[in-house]
């Protein structure tokens, strides 16, 4: 039985990021603000998508995170996403890398990327948006 994986596309809102993932390309992009009161609810479809993806990944998985703000409720969800990807990376089924982008003068966002880099064992590229 072959099952085609759906791509995920969530348009950004006042408190939620634009989110796009493509299973055949092995990419996931997150951009905007992530400040919902209940982040777990917002990220549920992302976790569902990831759980399906890690069973049938492409050899390289590239995650791009470009957030303007994220709240502590979202910080937990981001870590859970990265932890899932860390498991995938460690399994050797796909090489995962995370591109963490921050805007000029946003040192806090740069540091947030560094925070995750110290917790999760996946290659991080922390870069200023050109």
């Amino acid at each position, binding site marked *: 039985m072959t099952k085609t994986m759906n791509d995920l596309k969530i348009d950004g809102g006042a*408190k939620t990021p634009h989110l796009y993932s493509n299973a055949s390309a092995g990419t996931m992009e997150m951009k905007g603000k992530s400040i919902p*009161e209940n982040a*777990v609810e917002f990220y549920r479809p992302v976790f569902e998508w990831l759980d399906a993806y890690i069973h049938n990944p492409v050899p390289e998985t590239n995650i791009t995170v470009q957030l303007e703000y994220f*709240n502590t409720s979202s910080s937990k969800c981001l870590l859970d996403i990265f932890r899932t990807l860390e498991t995938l990376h460690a399994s050797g089924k796909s090489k995962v890398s995370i591109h963490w982008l921050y805007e000029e*003068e946003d040192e*806090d966002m740069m540091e947030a990327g560094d925070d995750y880099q110290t*917790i999760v064992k996946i290659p991080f590229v922390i870069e200023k948006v050109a």
Partner: protein
Amino acid sequence: MVKQMLNIHELFNKMEEEQIILSFKGDITQDLLTSVFEIMETKLVKENEDVKIKKKFNHVLIECLQNVYHHMEDLEEVRVLNLPDVSPNAIFIIRKFGNMHYEIITGNHILSTKVEGLKSRIEKINGLNAEELKSYYLEMLSSTEFSEKGGAGLGMIDMARKSGHKLGYSFDRVNDKLSFFSLVVEIS
């Protein structure tokens, strides 16, 4: 007894005197917070506030107000169960002292049984320097269990970390079961 008319002019003057630029007292809803975040973001852009202060302010504002929101959510559960007289309202105030100096104050009811725990958590946070706050944040982020509500105690650590100032707080006794919790976070 004759009902005293509220002197709105006096209240206005008092708020001017206290350098309050925005205040709200009432039911804290998600929609309200969305509006407040947008209003403040636009205001800071319009006032040409320094980019770093602006970022810091917005970040801390989000944490402070969502902290109240989650407190009220917790209280709502108990209110329905056994404390029907608990007010569903909370308050927040934003003060601006000249350029690049803000204060965010929040106030809400909490169960008195939670006072000691909350107090010791704030005291612990206030006893840490920037480096220790970072380690504490990372420790809490990576070790605590998933919470449906908020960030499992990360909020206040984050406020302190981002603001770079000690958290100001007070607890007032309301009755046997209830206390009023005020939190002050400075941004400069």
